[in-house]
């Protein structure tokens, strides 16, 4: 396990330990969201730096690095649902969380381009309505493109 992965495991475990019964707890929670956002920023930066090194030829492509970065994202997202519930609970109590909006936005962002949650939801609804194509249909179209 990488050092960052170990930190994210701790982040996940500690994310379950919040009460929402006092102003101090609210500040503590707000700081925790800020820490979570910094962790996400760090993962994104790590990914960006890796891709920059690939583009400039400073690093060779390594599937393990790509897969490890994917795992880091999954670790980061893991406590998000719980933290969003905690955030709602604090807000119901009347507390103002300064990192609420950036954290919500971050939670709903996708680390896989093209897998945006809203797009997937829409696709699922269209599929239910019968908007689907068969593999044969797609293969035929691809063959036309390859020949064309």
């Amino acid at each position, binding site marked *: 396990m990488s050092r960052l992965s170990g930190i994210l495991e701790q982040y996940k475990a500690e994310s379950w330990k919040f009460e929402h019964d006092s102003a101090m707890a609210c500040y503590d929670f707000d700081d925790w969201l800020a820490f979570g956002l910094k962790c996400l920023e760090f993962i994104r930066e790590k990914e960006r730096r890796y891709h920059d090194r*690939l583009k400039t030829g400073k690093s*060779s*492509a*390594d*599937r*393990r690095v*790509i897969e490890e970065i*994917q795992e880091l994202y*999954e670790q980061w*997202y*893991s406590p*998000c*649902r719980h933290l969003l519930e905690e955030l709602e609970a604090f807000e119901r109590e009347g507390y103002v969380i300064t990192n609420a909006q950036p954290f919500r936005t971050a*939670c*709903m*962002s*996708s680390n*896989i*381009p*093209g*897998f945006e*949650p809203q*797009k*997937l*939801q*829409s*696709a*699922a609804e*269209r*599929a239910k309505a019968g*908007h*689907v*194509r*068969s*593999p044969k249909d*797609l*293969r035929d*179209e*691809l063959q036309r*493109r*390859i020949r064309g």
Partner: protein
Amino acid sequence: MSYNVAYEDEASEGLLRLPPVIASKVLDEIDKLAEDPAGLSRPSYFPYLPVGQIYQFWCEDGDRRFWVSVFFQYSPDETSIIILAVTGQELPRMEDSEGS
């Protein structure tokens, strides 16, 4: 158990955005996925649809290599997998020592 495969329109478009030979190989991979979706994929994670599966794999053609991600759901009668998204991220080819 083998499943039928259906592609939602946006997934079809995602597939067709890939270079044709890569897209053809992705179709082959998805055919393999249909043979053993539980074994080859993993459950989706937040923030994606909770009832869904993700399958990621490498696909290459000549000097080009893609990290492909597929999102799918099982049909209500569990006879088909419905592909909802296909994306591919192109990366330089890896060194042979790193395995395939």
